């Protein structure tokens, strides 16, 4: 039956069924064979890596957990009680690490603001949140609620911003910067592509100036020079000035990331929108910007993570972020020399926040993938 140039004759032409793949090429066994033991060299590397990983994990676990000391009065006590990390220094100062010098009686306010933050973020981050429509309004109101809770006034005791510190300060600067820089950055990116020359010039100069200057100089400007530019007698809060500087600095970066996304939109999209009678703002809002933002997610999250970590720079102009608190803690004679524990603790805090952001961005990319 077999003819030259046709199939081998097991099935009539056009009748070949879909067969399962050969054994061992799919499933967990197949994955391991393909990825871990595909050749003698690969097998050797796999075994070596396994041994190294084992050694690393056991020694890290020993220092971090098994031999670590949690309760002690001083560094000397710690060293006597165990050979691992001395977490006692963190435990004793945990309130300062979290709140800075925020009065103990009022700490429920930032805690409440922190808890409410999740309620405000949920409808923005996850589109399956129940009652999303109503929750969005809460998200819009949240910055004012949080500001009121943390700063006070209208029935609450006013807590001066100088006493803010620790992770609370990081979150205040980081989240304000992130939330405010995205819309400003988008407007700058659109402005940079505007057909109106004057708007384009203003946006380009702003972006180029802000990107061309280190954040630290902007922070110095915020802490010292800004007063020269203000009418005499006006003083406005250092924290507010820092928030403004961090926000506009991040906006310039966001603007460039978003511009990259906008440039990736084919001209045909604009033409299709034009041909159907969409105005510029409707085209932007409904057609080009959603696509551009989707493309820009990795870059945007990258900028957010950088901004979040850059909040530690405020220690230089005298705000007590976690690193500043860490430095103060280490200056205490009883705990002198425990810099490894202190800085590792701060590092872990930053790592988990940033890792969460990065995971969320991956989730979002998958969620928005529409098969093109």
């Amino acid at each position, binding site marked *: 039956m077999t003819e030259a140039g046709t199939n081998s004759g097991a099935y009539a032409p056009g009748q070949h069924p879909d067969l399962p793949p050969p054994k061992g090429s799919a499933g967990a066994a197949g994955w391991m064979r393909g990825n871990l033991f595909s050749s003698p060299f690969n097998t050797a590397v796999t075994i070596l890596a396994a041994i190294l990983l084992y050694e690393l994990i056991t020694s890290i676990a020993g220092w971090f957990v098994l031999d670590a000391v949690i309760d002690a009065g001083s560094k000397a006590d710690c060293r006597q009680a165990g050979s691992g990390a001395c977490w006692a220094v963190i435990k004793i100062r945990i309130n300062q690490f979290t709140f800075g010098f925020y009065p103990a009686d009022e700490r429920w306010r930032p805690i409440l603001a922190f808890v409410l933050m999740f309620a405000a973020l949920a409808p923005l981050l996850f589109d399956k949140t129940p009652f999303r429509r109503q929750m969005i309004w809460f998200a819009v109101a949240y910055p004012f609620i949080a500001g009121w809770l943390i700063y006070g006034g209208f029935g609450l005791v006013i807590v001066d911003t100088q006493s803010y510190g620790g992770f609370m300060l990081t979150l205040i600067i980081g989240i304000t910067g992130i939330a405010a820089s995205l819309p400003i950055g988008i407007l700058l990116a659109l402005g940079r592509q505007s057909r109106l020359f004057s708007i384009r010039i203003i946006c380009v100069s702003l972006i180029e100036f802000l990107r061309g200057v280190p954040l630290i100089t902007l922070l110095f400007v915020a802490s010292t020079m800004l007063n020269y530019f203000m009418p005499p007698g006006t003083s406005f809060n250092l924290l507010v000035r820092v928030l403004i500087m961090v926000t506009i600095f991040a906006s310039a970066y966001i603007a460039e990331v978003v511009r990259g996304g906008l440039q990736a939109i*084919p001209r*045909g*999209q604009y*033409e*299709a929108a*034009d*041909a*159907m*009678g*969409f*105005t510029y703002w*409707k085209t932007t809002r*409904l*057609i080009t910007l*959603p*696509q551009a933002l*989707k493309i820009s997610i990795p870059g945007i999250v990258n900028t957010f993570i950088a901004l979040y970590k850059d909040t530690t720079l405020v220690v230089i102009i005298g705000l007590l972020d976690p690193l500043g608190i860490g430095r103060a803690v280490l200056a205490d004679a009883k705990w002198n020399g425990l810099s490894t524990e202190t800085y590792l603790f701060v590092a872990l805090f930053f790592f988990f926040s940033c890792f969460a952001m990065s995971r969320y961005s991956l989730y979002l990319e998958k969620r*928005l993938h*529409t*098969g*093109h």
Partner: protein
Amino acid sequence: MISIEAMHKWFGAFHVLKDINLQVYEGERIVICGPSGSGKSTLIRCINRLEQHQQGDIIVDGTELTGDLKHIELIRSEVGMVFQHFNLFPHLSVLENCTLAPIWVRKMAKRDAEEIAMQYLERVKIPEQAAKFPGQLSGGQQQRVAIARALCMTPKIMLFDEPTSALDPEMIKEVLDVMIELAETGMTMLVVTHEMGFAKTVADCVVFMDEGEIIERNDPEPFFNAPEHERTKLFLSQILTH
């Protein structure tokens, strides 16, 4: 319906359209053909102002095309366009692609817009794909969605800019069938295409362009059998011999 008089257009110093005069009456189906670079796409893109003409007049359904944004918007909402590369919105589902303009430009209620969209999707024979995204469809299906999307604005005139040029041969027919059906409903259509079979069966008149000028305009029967100009004869012999 469309009246173009003594229209000229330049791209920089390059004179793309020269002294174009074209009248299109209601319900007329006109096929525009010609070698690439002859300005046929530019011509139909001038009709909804995707390109701007510099001299002469274009009047669409009684409204003159000028720099006036109101006029442009009015004309654009009455003239549907289908592109060579579909230009569907990839972040929206097929149904959302069809309802976006009715909802945001025509201010239609979402429900009504969806109902109309489903009717047109049925007419182009892909109602079952409504929930999918354009990236999951074949080229022919995408082009049919693009036609449905344009029809959802209930336009008075439809422009087709080489609607089958980016398609695999197997898919050309399904798109042409939809276009033929549309022609049978009496829609005013301007079609830039190389599908001469379509021109023969559907067109009321064929326009041949070369180097920015309209060389010949005739009924399909004489156009294909007894072209008047040498240039037309050469063009036809080149595309019909293989």
